[in-house]
């Protein structure tokens, strides 16, 4: 099965966007005549696999290499570097070019920045004195469809850059990407933003529209009705909780990359040992589409049902000899779904080997206790014990961050004690890590009273779930906790920010409500009424489309919650999710941990 997702059912014509990116890339290849060697950075390789089949590149006379520190081995006289504009890549490229010099090879070098060239990168090329040898260009890839309702900006470090390094270039990228969407689908009339980065992106979007306006006359009705921008900083609690949907768990345990997971072949029932297989996970797989967003408990039941029903059919076919051809046809059709069922049974079985452990349940219990801010002592001692057992530091930090966020920090005594225990258990080299976490507000000293309880009450974040199989509320996703971010989206589409203004003030960052487009060209900050349900089904009879942008990443669980919402009766909206990256608690913390270490070396 292809890893490139099928986009036919997308609420927006995302296939056209992807074709455009494909065409752009092929045009670059065509512009360089003859055989060429394409060198791409490893991360981009994953991204490109979502856009086109690599075999296509060969047809254009290109051989593919990954950029690394080693000198380049190729016969080609033309080298095309296709890399994201990161400083470290520039150094690698420069060293590869210099490596060629003494050999007296006559080579032509091309460098295409993804998505755009930056001054800092060119400066490095100049310093390394390879600037003259390169032909520079840009490959404007700002977004990639991950699935029929998810777009990714492929900005891995956005959160870290905004919170710790103070680098907001990703915000510009997000605004630019939305602006590009507007060129294809019309100016989005309603903009709602919450958080420092989000409001900045909304303002940037406005100024981009002024400098380089999308012509509104020949577009007709804009296809996207509202864009809601949210900073991850507004809700850091949710990603720290263990996701309990099928897709969420897959990401937590096996890590989904570019819409697929890599697992040992033995897990998938194959015989070969030690081999890795890639399992694509997107909505082209009908069964996966059906079960990805269910609570994992339910998934196991569904799979069992499917398997037994096929078994029954099989028994029927065998016992009765008088079937018509059409009956047989039906049966064969159902057998076609067999490989899909087998695939997910294997994956689910593997997941159960994690979720079956008592430690997994103990952890969920503690998370729930922390969220309800019930018993600080128990939570504190649980984490203390984890540190003493020297459990993986990211597991420890995840709970610690959760505890710190819900309590607006830890009392000084506990804070210093735990920090000391961490340094003793994991080494003093983690000092910059603790500093960075404090700077990002993830793990800090208590300075004011926590308003978390107030927020959970006002937004009904803690809900008792009785029936995970037939949920009536998004809280089924975390078995009793409704993600804060999605509650905000719920309010934003229902009535705008106004009704929860007081509440928004309790969360970090400013908020913004804008009306744009022909009706309000000189649109400034005029506050307006919410969409209202009667407007939500527009003239054409389409459900209106809401683009939800998460700056700093979104979890699969939250995407599941949005899908659940749009499937609810009386909800006149389709949601399209756009994010800098799909994250979970570990993938948020891991780069902070490794980066903090790198600084030391």
């Amino acid at each position, binding site marked *: 099965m292809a890893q490139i997702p099928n986009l036919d059912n997308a609420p927006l014509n995302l296939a056209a966007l992807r074709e455009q990116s494909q065409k752009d890339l092929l045009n670059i290849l065509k512009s360089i005549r003859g055989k060429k060697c394409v060198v791409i950075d490893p991360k981009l390789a994953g991204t490109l696999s979502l856009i086109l089949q690599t075999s296509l590149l060969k047809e254009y006379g290109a051989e593919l290499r990954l950029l690394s520190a080693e000198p380049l081995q190729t016969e080609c006289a033309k080298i095309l570097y296709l890399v994201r504009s990161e400083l470290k890549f520039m150094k690698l490229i420069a060293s590869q070019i210099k490596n060629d010099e003494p050999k007296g090879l006559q080579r032509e070098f091309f460098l295409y920045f993804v998505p755009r060239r930056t001054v800092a990168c060119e400066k490095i090329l100049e310093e390394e004195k390879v600037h003259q040898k390169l032909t520079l260009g840009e490959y404007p890839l700002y977004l990639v469809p991950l699935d029929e309702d998810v777009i990714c900006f492929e900005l891995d470090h956005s959160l870290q850059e905004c919170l710790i390094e103070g680098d907001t270039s990703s915000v510009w990228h997000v605004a630019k990407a939305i602006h590009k969407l507007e060129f294809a689908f019309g100016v989005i009339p309603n903009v709602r933003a919450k958080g420092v980065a989000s409001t900045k992106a909304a303002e940037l979007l406005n100024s981009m529209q002024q400098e380089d306006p999308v012509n509104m006359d020949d577009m007709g009705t804009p296809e996207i009705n509202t864009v809601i921008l949210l900073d991850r900083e507004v809700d850091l609690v949710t990603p720290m909780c263990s996701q309990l949907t099928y897709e969420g768990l897959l990401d937590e345990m096996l890590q989904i990359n570019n819409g697929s997971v890599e697992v040992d072949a033995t897990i998938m029932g194959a015989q070969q040992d030690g081999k890795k297989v890639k399992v694509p996970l997107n909505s082209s797989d009908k069964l996966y589409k059906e079960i990805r967003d269910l609570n994992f408990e339910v998934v196991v039941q569904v799979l069992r049902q499917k398997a037994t029903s096929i078994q029954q059919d099989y028994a029927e076919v065998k016992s009765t000899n008088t079937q018509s051809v059409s009956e047989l046809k039906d049966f064969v059709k159902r057998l076609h779904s067999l490989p899909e069922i087998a695939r997910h049974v294997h994956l689910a079985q593997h997941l159960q080997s994690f979720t079956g452990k008592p430690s997994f349940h103990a952890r969920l219990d503690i998370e729930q206790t922390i969220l309800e801010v019930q018993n600080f002592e128990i939570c504190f001692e649980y984490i*203390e*014990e984890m*540190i*003493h*057992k*020297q459990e993986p530091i990211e597991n420890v930090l995840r709970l610690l961050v959760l505890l710190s966020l819900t309590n607006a920090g830890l009392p000084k005594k506990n804070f*210093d004690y735990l*920090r*000391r*225990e961490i*340094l*003793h*258990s*994991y*080494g*003093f*080299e983690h*000092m*910059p890590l603790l*500093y960075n976490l404090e700077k990002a507000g993830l793990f800090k000293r208590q300075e004011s009273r926590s308003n978390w309880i107030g927020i959970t009450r006002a937004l009904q974040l803690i809900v008792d779930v009785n029936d995970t199989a037939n949920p009536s509320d998004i809280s089924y996703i975390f078995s009793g906790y409704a993600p804060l971010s999605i509650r905000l989206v719920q309010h934003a589409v229902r009535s705008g920010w106004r009704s929860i203004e007081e509440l928004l003030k309790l969360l970090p960052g400013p908020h913004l409500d804008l009306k744009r487009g022909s009706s309000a060209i000189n649109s400034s900050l005029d506050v307006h009424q919410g969409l209202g349900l009667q407007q939500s089904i527009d003239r054409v009879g389409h459900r209106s489309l809401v683009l939800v942008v998460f700056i700093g990443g979104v979890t699969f669980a939250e995407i599941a919650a949005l899908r659940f919402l749009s499937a609810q009766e009386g909800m006149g909206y389709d949601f399209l999710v756009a994010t800098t990256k799909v994250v979970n608690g570990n993938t948020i913390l891991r780069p902070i941990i490794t980066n903090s270490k790198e*600084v*030391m*070396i």
Partner: protein
Amino acid sequence: LLLKESRELERNPMASKGSPLHGPQVRLIEQAHRLFAETKEHVFESKASEEHAKLLRSQHELEVSTKQAIFVGSSVSDTIKTCIAMGNERAALKVKSEFKVPDKRWYWLKSCALATVGNWDALEKF
């Protein structure tokens, strides 16, 4: 600015990590400790870097006395574990008292280390 300065110093010593000469590293960390101590906000950092220097010193001593270069660079807990695993409980106790390791952590470390080397008799007695 002061913070930045001391942070720089915190980073630098690591550059010399792994080299047989730990003198400069320890000195740099001690310098960081003094810089942190100049302000009131960085009491914690100051103490931590003081302990860091102390740890490196005692690890160096341990390496000399055991003639095995396995200590330097590991954490306090790992140092204790290694000592116990080697059957040198006295050295482990010394580290424990030197760094005021709470009993709770001490018990975890001890049982864990004894289990790793399969010293079930000692684990039973303990």
